[in-house]
């Protein structure tokens, strides 16, 4: 049976792992390569590496860091941040990434999703969607959410569920859905939003933003219908250890890949 995945996220700035609250107020969380290796050993199912300042500073992701990380881990590895062209993706895949995550560029030029899926296969194209509540998008009694880009700085006027359906129909293989409202707050995931997105597309959805306690993961895999859950600070700062979390989730009937 396919396991639900637990994915630590390494937000990278200048080669260091950082973490903020609601996308700002970053603090240092350690060396990226050391963290990646430790996670790979301790039972993380996958790693995500986001060069969070790449888009803002308009430069490519550090492929050399990707290369160093891939030398040290034996689990799948997604890389995002600042990806603009097919060539950028080629460089990252050649550097050891298994999947690439695009966000701002996908919104700016949606056809890039089609091109990437054709060139490299849907399985390696992850669309990251940063979502924030916007009552202007409320419809049929359901809360409306708006897509944000450029590290959560710029609203796009796009509604999240319809954007998720569009990236799916264009050949995206997986969605990384982050609630900016919940990010770093440790108050639980955006369950209603995650469940709606997950049920409106035929590809896996990774829920991100808001993990605080182990019970939050039960909720996101059951009520939230997520296929994977991503978190950063609670793992980096050892508030929750992944092996312990996976045992806890297994005991609550959620299929997990346990190392023991």
């Amino acid at each position, binding site marked *: 049976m396919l396991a639900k995945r637990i994915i630590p996220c390494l937000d990278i700035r200048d080669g260091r792992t950082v973490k903020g609250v609601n996308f700002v107020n970053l603090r240092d969380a350690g060396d990226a390569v050391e963290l990646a290796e430790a996670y790979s050993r301790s039972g993380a199912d996958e790693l995500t590496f986001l060069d969070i300042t790449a888009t803002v500073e308009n430069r490519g992701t550090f492929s050399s860091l990707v290369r160093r990380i891939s030398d040290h881990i034996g689990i799948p590895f997604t890389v995002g941040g600042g990806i603009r062209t097919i060539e950028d993706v080629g460089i990252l895949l050649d550097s050891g990434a*298994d999947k690439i995550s695009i966000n701002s560029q996908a919104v700016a030029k949606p056809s890039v999703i089609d091109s990437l899926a054709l060139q490299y296969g849907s399985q390696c194209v992850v669309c990251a969607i940063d979502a924030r509540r916007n009552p202007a998008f409320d419809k049929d009694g359901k809360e409306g959410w708006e897509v944000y880009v450029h590290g959560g700085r710029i609203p796009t006027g796009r509604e999240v569920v319809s954007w998720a359906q569009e990236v799916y129909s264009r050949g995206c293989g997986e969605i990384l859905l982050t609630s900016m409202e919940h990010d770093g707050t440790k108050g639980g995931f955006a369950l209603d939003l995650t469940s709606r997105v997950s049920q409106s597309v035929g590809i896996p959805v990774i829920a991100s933003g808001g993990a605080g306690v182990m019970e939050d993961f039960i909720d996101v895999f059951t009520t939230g219908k997520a296929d994977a859950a991503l978190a950063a600070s609670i793992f980096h700062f050892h508030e929750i250890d992944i092996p312990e979390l996976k045992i806890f989730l297994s005991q609550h009937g959620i299929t997990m890949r346990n190392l023991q």
Partner: protein
Amino acid sequence: MNITIVKYNAGNTRSVLCALHRLGYEATVSDDPAVLCAADRVVFPGVGEASTAMEYLKKTHLDEVLVALKQPFLGICLGMQLMCSHSEENDTTCLGMFDVPVLKFPPDTGEKIPHMGWNTIETKDDPLFSGLSENRWCYFVHSYYVPLCEETIASTEYASVCFSASLHRDNFWGCQFHPEKSGSVGEQILKNFLEAL
């Protein structure tokens, strides 16, 4: 030991190189028939689309070279699918080391496609799996599958289909999952491919 990874326009060969390096082996990446024929082990990784990959293999005549190889040969993911007879992915004729077609997952099961993530494999007795622990989680990412057949040495289940996770005939092995990305289980399988065959 002389390990060669087949160079073609599909596949992230670096992941395989890194995995072999962690096991203490270095490999070369080549599309030179002489180099491939002289290798002790050949790895045929693959990520991408079947028809584009086959087109490239035919254009470079690697198709004829690969099927004639006699040393232990391991196809991974798309690599294993390309070793089958035919793929439903863009109606592609493949290399044919395994006489079995590659099919698309049925679209109407309510399960998400691709089959992406960690799944368990049920293994038969094969040297590729010697020394594996009971805990057999492997990492899969694919939208097409190889049905169970005579050459099946491991199976797994997704979207109401039980299918081949691994194949073996003569000197040819295939893994639908990615041993290079399957943690310690994958490491053991790669180690077996290098040392136990």
